């Protein structure tokens, strides 16, 4: 790609094409908080006193606490795992950070360029903008859109960023090839794909565009060893590009390969009690 091409794209995309070192350098120039200040200033994500309880009105108003007192920070270039047994609220926590689940108390501060947005209290339209450019989310399952081909499903985030369709499609094809999705499937809607094939489409869609903050919910659950290795490679590339990743990685091999630290979500409850 030529420099002129880059100029016509949104900044975030142009940035991804550059070398990681260069990106980091330009990032530190444009950030509000200059380097050398307290570490908390450089966080991409800062969660504090976060709590949520589901109220089930169809079950006589039963209350189901899922997260209480969550507090942690995430920095550019690191991949952090949420740890704890099933049902401890890891997925709920990711969904709250994405704005998919609402928040009862606490704050979720996300750095969005020069601004800081509190997902817990942001207006819906602000969340849409945040998702469009800043937060990526790789869910556990692909939500299939009727009649849309795998290639278009993957290319869509880039097209949304303003990348010409032809280039977006080419990059989608590259990524699907890398994830070993057979080429004969690319033109088909993923509804009939196997679990592992759908998951690879989902990962490709979640990783194709540059988003400074990535949330991943069990990205390798249905993958074989070869494809797990591909995903590990993709995550490492994102880290080198300065992306902060928060995820649920039940697979110990993947977790140990990519995560610098683990946040035990059961500790949050204990601190509160």
């Amino acid at each position, binding site marked *: 790609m030529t420099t002129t091409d880059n100029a016509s794209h949104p900044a975030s995309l142009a940035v991804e094409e550059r070398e990681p070192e260069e990106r980091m350098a330009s990032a530190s120039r444009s950030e509000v908080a200059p380097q050398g200040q307290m570490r908390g200033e450089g966080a991409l994500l800062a969660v504090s006193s976060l709590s949520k309880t589901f*109220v089930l*009105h*169809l079950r006589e108003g039963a209350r189901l606490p899922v997260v209480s007192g969550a507090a942690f920070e995430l920095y550019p270039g690191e991949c952090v795992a949420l740890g704890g047994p099933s049902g401890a609220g890891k997925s709920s926590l990711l*969904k709250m950070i994405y704005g*998919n689940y*609402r928040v009862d108390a606490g704050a979720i501060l996300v750095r969005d360029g020069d601004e800081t947005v509190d997902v817990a209290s942001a207006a*819906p339209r602000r969340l*849409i903008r945040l998702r469009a450019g800043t937060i990526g989310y790789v869910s556990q399952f692909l939500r299939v859109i*009727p009649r849309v081909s795998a290639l278009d499903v993957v290319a869509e985030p880039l097209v949304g960023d303003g990348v010409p369709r032809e280039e977006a499609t080419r990059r989608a094809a590259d990524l699907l090839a890398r994830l070993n999705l057979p080429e004969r499937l690319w033109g088909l809607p993923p509804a009939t794909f196997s679990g592992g094939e759908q998951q690879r489409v989902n990962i490709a869609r979640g990783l194709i565009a540059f988003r400074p903050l990535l949330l991943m919910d069990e990205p390798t659950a249905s993958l074989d060893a070869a494809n797990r290795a591909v995903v590990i490679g993709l995550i490492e590339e994102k880290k080198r590009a300065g992306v902060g990743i928060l995820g649920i990685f039940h697979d110990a091999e993947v977790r140990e390969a990519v995560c610098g630290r683990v946040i035990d979500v059961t500790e949050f409850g204990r601190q509160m009690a």
Partner: protein
Amino acid sequence: MTEQPLLIAETLGKNYGARIGCRDVALEVYPGEVLAVVGESGSGKSTLLGLLSTELEPSAGRVSYRLRDGSLRDLATLGAAERRLLMRTDWGFVRQNPADGLRMAVSAGGNVGERLMAVGRRHYGDIRTEALDWLGRVEIAADRIDDDPRSFSGGMRQRLQIARNLVTRPRLVFMDEPTGGLDVSVQARLLDLVRSLVSEMGLAVIIVTHDLAVARLLSHRMVVMRQGRVIETGLTDQVLDDPREPYTQLLVSSVLAA
């Protein structure tokens, strides 16, 4: 970046005698965004759509719209001619029953071309070319241009209605249960078409539907209505995945998962 709403409703209400159609509704729609209004039959969502599109006269409150020149106008203050022009040029209205939105005795090409003529286009060849282009975009074969919609299937009629509404490149389109009554396979094709046209053209859409799957697929934000009032609003996925109100929880839990 200060984006301004395209349409604003304030304290909007409608009574049918003693019966309440809808009450105290406030909402905003921004350029390029799809807002879904969901609720059961009788919840007031069609009344609300009628009020927003000025087809019904409100008993209370008002609806304002930003004209192409940037000025925000209370729709009640527009003259009849101004309002007609707005509906022909800047707005579209896709109805549940295509027979209500099409002229059934006029050819497919005529149905699309008529809207162009209404905005002052006169050159027959140009109008026909553009009509043909639009029939292609909604996947109707070119050789059906001179057939009238009575010979079309339900899905084709609905796609024709969409072409008729979008040919003038409106900024705001009202849709009332656009997929109601269609087979699921036909529905999927129509939804995919609407989804791509809306994003390509940057349309703002207010869509009324009782089908939560349709709302999830098409809309960015959602308004839940019950007994004439808006009881819950938010991002579409947020309202559907984490519904807060008892009635919304009931609605969401009542959907059959296929």
